[in-house]
């Protein structure tokens, strides 16, 4: 079993539903986005091209963040998920500078003292911020808590364009494997030999 995600750039319309669904699912504090959709405009008017590029932790097979982690807080599960044990992380941010995708987020000390409305927490935030710690590094978990229940990650579940597909990269017949084969999926920064578990179709 090797979980991975295929992101179909032809489908993505840049609506940011994934960005907000991820926020709602994980209850991340202000400024912390496990995933988001970047855009890229190229060309000059009227020959303009605009591409929407969702980014998230790539759950690399050869994960630099795991290699540089001095505490062992970052670990790799057998199903390919790269996760951070919040209780072990000491907040040195070696992983932050080692992740070529800039997908790791450090929660400053005191970060969880205020939420989206300052010191007043909404009931939702009061519940969800307990799932976080300040002074440590967090990142996309491929919604491991959902995956463990047999659900898809929140961003995949909601994506209105079905631009995100989640599945088993080890299974040659899974939808992700078939899409990677048939449409020529590419890994971001493959030149860095990180072997991301996220593939893009263009």
């Amino acid at each position: 079993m090797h979980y991975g995600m295929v992101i179909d750039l032809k489908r993505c319309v840049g609506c940011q539903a994934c960005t907000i669904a991820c926020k709602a699912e994980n209850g991340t504090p202000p400024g912390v986005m496990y995933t988001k959709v970047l855009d890229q405009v190229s060309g000059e008017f009227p020959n303009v091209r605009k591409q929407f590029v969702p980014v998230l932790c790539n759950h690399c097979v050869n994960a630099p963040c795991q290699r540089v982690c001095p505490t062992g807080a970052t670990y790799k599960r057998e199903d390919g998920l790269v996760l951070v044990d919040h209780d072990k992380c000491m907040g040195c941010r070696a992983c932050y500078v080692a992740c070529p995708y800039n997908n790791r987020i450090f929660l400053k000390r005191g970060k969880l003292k205020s939420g989206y409305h300052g010191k007043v927490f909404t009931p939702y935030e009061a519940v969800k911020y307990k799932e976080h710690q300040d002074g440590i590094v967090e990142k996309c978990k491929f919604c491991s808590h959902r995956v463990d229940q047999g659900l898809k990650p929140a961003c995949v579940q909601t994506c209105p364009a079905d631009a995100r597909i989640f599945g088993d990269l080890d299974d040659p017949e899974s939808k992700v494997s078939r899409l990677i084969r048939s449409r020529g999926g590419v890994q971001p920064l493959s030149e860095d030999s990180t072997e991301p578990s996220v593939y893009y179709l263009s």
Partner: protein
Amino acid sequence: MSRIMPLVGNEYVLGFRKQLEWSGLIASAFFFGKIGAGLFMMSVYTESRLGMLIGLTIVLGGKGGAHMLFLGKPWRFWRGMSQPGTSWVSRGLWAMTFMTVFGGAALILPAGSTLFMPLAIIAAFFAFIVAVYDGFLLTSSNAIPIWNTALMPVMCMFYAFLGGTTLTLFLTHFGIIPPSIIEPVLSTVETILLAVNLAIVFLYLITCINSGGARKKSFELLVKGPYAVAFFSLAIGLGLIFTLVMTVISGSHAGPGVVAMVTVADLIGHYLIFFLFLRAGVFKPVFGLLKI
């Protein structure tokens, strides 16, 4: 046709992004680690116990303190020792620990103990690792190309030697540690190290000129962007050229004013150059060279 990829902040735009986490405190830790370890090594060579003690104190207090201030969860620092197999941070922590243990043991010994020198040399070996491991730490990051160069550990090593020499010179000059090496030799070493460092920094910049992508962006930040003034005037001008000129002119006859000035200038330059290297760290765009 395609526009040059922009350097972006928190906008949702594909582009180069600056690393924003390793900054002043990490630069301080690197700085204190290098000058402390440098002084420690020089003091072992000069057999100055006081110098060793000062060096060790700088490493523990300065570097260790900066690290503790920097860590998000400082009291979990001990967890950082668990992965020396892959993590340079772990290795650095171990090196600091061994340096402290062996150095401390040597210093506790009564004067004239035969164990002193072996212990001190072992401690100096770990001090050497403390001085250069951050170079390997930076080099090992593929993510930030301007750090990802073999020159980084070399530069760290020479800056540590330079820092150690400068401090030894200073402490000797002001009579804090006894002059076991005569000052002319020291100031010659200082001159050579300054010249070598200047050459390495120059070489480092040359490799950046002909690079592309994120390294080039970092380079531009250093030489053209917001950091250029500090980089040229303080990190290089004050830290290397001014000091070099002063050292060459005054030679071994430098008065206390000059020595103090050179020391301060060297330390400012030393701190700033690594601070600016950190601040200029730029990630590649997530798609790198890939056309999407």
